[in-house]
């Protein structure tokens, strides 16, 4: 069968660190091709190269047999390649209809006409989305639907879906799969990235597995089963240990209740959320994007403020608290390690030592007005050793570090404040496999030392492997609690979406 897209020996390196190494990939006309691999395996990078969002360092891409190199997603779109990104790329302040027609507007546009045509189009896809709704008011699942609709709307020949089903309910997934089959029947070629292996086995014609930026296996779906895919994905022993299920004997027993959150509310995002956090335990929090888990813990750590009226109560060691600024929470021993390290977690152009010392200043622990460089570096050296941060030297700028080491700096910035409660939000997002294991070790060590640890993650195996208790967040509140022994991926996901 003819290949609509073919990649030959594609390599992509970020600051010398290869994300993809000599990968060959072929997408045939009218096929659904599942692209599988662990986080950081290079799936998104590969698809972004196809869609023109990222340029390959070396290698050649062929479109219908002709070598091409797209400089922008718009260029790729014009060539018939559309991508639905994991993080939605919709304009939040515009309506659904406006977003659908963004980039394909005429000189004069009639808003009513656009809305009617968007309504018809969404209905034809079986997506229950109001075309007049402003995108920022939509939940994660509906945004994902609009994103998918936009890709289909461009009549692309090649559509790339990056984790399209993560935010969808089983019912919506069925509609989505029916849509994919319809597109396939119409000759559209689809690249489908998913962490749910059953979905890949169910819907795809061929499967390609990447591991640590390299092509591990590719072939017809009929030749694969779940075990074969996992073996290809995980490969190394390290990875097998990373996401091992925990037995009941390995679960830490709860210590003293340090944090009690009762009925806190913040607009429509956090709604009457109640839970407790205990010392000496890792409390895992799972929820889909938009479920309010990050916002809840940002309220706890003083970054956001709960509703002024009927906003609920937060008790720290049985004492009611309401923080105006994060500094007050830090002084009380609450540290929030952000999910967005680039904008909230680090000063990219400053050194590791300066970043770590900035963390100390944030808690008000640095009493001296003038600090000697030697003193600062000695302090940083200690933490660099403890967290095994790997860099050319202590003065290396954080921007020059790998994702995993950047994340360790962010964690270190929090830990220098000697917290009693540490909240990790997506601690291993965008982190390579080796660093994931090290970060998990750090988190486990903190709980063993008696700290109250919260891990927010949208990656189920991580939550199940790390947590001593698992809380599931849905529509702004904790709806279910599981013990690691009693939890299964299905049960957790069911609680998260239903």
């Amino acid at each position: 069968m003819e290949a609509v897209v073919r990649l030959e020996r594609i390599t992509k390196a970020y600051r010398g660190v290869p994300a993809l190494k000599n990968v060959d990939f072929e997408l045939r006309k009218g096929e659904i091709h599942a692209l599988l691999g662990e986080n950081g395996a290079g799936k998104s990078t590969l698809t972004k190269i196809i869609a023109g969002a990222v340029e390959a360092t070396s290698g050649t891409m062929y479109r219908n047999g002709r070598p091409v190199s797209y400089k922008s997603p718009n260029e790729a779109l014009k060539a018939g390649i559309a991508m639905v990104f994991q993080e939605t790329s919709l304009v939040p302040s515009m309506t659904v209809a406006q977003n659908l027609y963004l980039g394909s507007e005429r000189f004069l546009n009639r808003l009513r006409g656009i809305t009617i045509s968007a309504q018809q189009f969404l209905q034809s896809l079986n997506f229950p989305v109001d075309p007049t709704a402003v995108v920022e008011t939509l939940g994660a699942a509906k945004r994902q639907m609009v994103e998918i609709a936009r890709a289909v709307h461009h009549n692309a020949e090649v559509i790339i879906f990056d984790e399209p089903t993560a935010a969808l309910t089983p019912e919506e997934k069925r509609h989505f799969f029916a849509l994919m089959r319809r597109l396939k029947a119409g000759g559209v070629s689809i690249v489908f990235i998913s962490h749910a292996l059953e979905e890949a086995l169910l819907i795809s014609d061929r499967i390609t597995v990447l591991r640590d930026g390299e092509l591990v296996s590719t072939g017809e779906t009929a030749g694969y089963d779940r075990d074969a895919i996992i073996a290809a994905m995980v490969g190394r022993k390290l990875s097998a240990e990373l996401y091992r299920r925990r037995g009941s004997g390995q679960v830490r027993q709860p210590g003293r209740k340090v944090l009690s959150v009762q009925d806190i509310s913040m607009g429509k995002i956090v709604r009457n959320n109640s839970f407790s956090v205990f010392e000496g335990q890792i409390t895992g929090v799972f929820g889909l994007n938009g479920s309010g888990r990050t916002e809840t813990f940002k309220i706890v750590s003083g970054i956001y403020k709960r509703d002024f009226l009927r906003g609920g109560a937060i008790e720290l060691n049985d004492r009611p608290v309401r923080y105006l600024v994060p500094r007050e929470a830090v002084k009380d021993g609450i540290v929030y390690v952000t999910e967005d390290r680039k904008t909230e977690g680090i000063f990219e152009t400053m050194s590791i030592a300066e970043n770590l010392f900035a963390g100390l200043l944030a808690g008000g622990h640095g009493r001296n007005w003038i600090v000697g460089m030697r003193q600062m570096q000695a302090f940083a050296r200690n933490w660099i050793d403890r967290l095994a941060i790997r860099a050319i030297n202590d003065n290396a700028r954080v921007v020059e570090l790998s994702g995993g080491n950047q994340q360790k700096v962010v964690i270190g910035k929090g830990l220098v404040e000697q917290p009693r409660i540490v909240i990790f939000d997506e601690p291993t997002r965008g982190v390579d496999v080796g660093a994931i294991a090290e970060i998990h070790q750090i988190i486990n060590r903190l709980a063993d030392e008696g700290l109250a640890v919260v891990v927010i993650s949208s990656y189920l195996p991580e939550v199940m492997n790390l947590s001593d208790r698992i809380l599931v967040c849905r529509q702004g509140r904790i709806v279910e609690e599981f013990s690691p022994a009693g939890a299964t991926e299905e049960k957790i996901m069911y609680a998260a979406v239903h």
Partner: protein
Amino acid sequence: MIFDPLLDLFRGKAVTIPPMDGAFRPNTQIDDAPLAGRLAAPDNLVELDGRLLASSGNAVVSIAMHGGPQTVSTFDAPVTALAVSPDGELAVALETGRLYLDGRELELPSALACITAIAFAPDSSLYAANGSAERRPREWAADLMLKGESGSLWARAPWSGVWREIASGLAFPFGIFLDGAGAVVSESWRHRLVRIESSGGRSTILDRLPGYPSRLSPASGGGAWLSLFAPRNRLVEFVLQEDAYRADMLAEVPPDCWIAPALSSRRSFLEPLQCGAIKTMGVHKPWSPTRSYGMVVRLDRGMRPLYSLHSRADGTRHGICSVLEHGGRLVAASKGGDCLVAIDLATAGGVN
């Protein structure tokens, strides 16, 4: 924040419900437990000569684990509390404010007319919880809605038969547990357990319960079992803040349809919170807001909660008013579910 007390004047003090986690983590153990018998609105459980007795309406019945209930005695009013003395005498309290000991009616002070729980001390002193000075036991929902706090604890000296009020101003005392240090009383409307000494001194020993506590019974290995007959609910807490609305509701709405805790729910389409019982794809969500719930809590010697057993919003064995260890199992009386269930003690705390 130092301005919080001042700001609370404007925004109102936060009324919050403690989360059901830690020792109160939900499970389905009460719903999963085998049925010990069907009985209409079983209320109080006691053990007499190795037999399990339960109050049900106007009767006291004997429950055999593998047979139907047998009526032991009937009265002219609903039975509201049972207790067995160290000498094996059965004490029975009635809705009408009367109290029988081994068939003999005891003389009661006029203020003791709403007996919700009774218990004997080792010296045969009889303790009685008087739920309210103004209402009868079956009017408990009205007492909550009117924020009653006229309950009291009484003790009867065994030799003289004289009753003495030990404590007053209690918000619907609904359970008594006597240990060496005094009487532990569950105060339903204040969601707490208080220790009341014979001198009248009192101290809170367990506060901020997520439901309304009812009767207590001793647990093997020390400590006690506490049953909670209904959950706390945000809507009810809100209604309790709205005085005018509550007054209108009490005056105009039938009691079954009040926005108030209930022993069972989802039996009538007229009752409130139907929309709170969230259903998706035909499945009733166990975490959905509910007026009724089933919960039993195991307390240690210091009356701290160890673990709990639940019948959640999607369950039916709600309104647990009494539990008792009997024959190696924990028997729970589900007044809202019209049944008795037997929970295996060996596995009871396993899932927490």
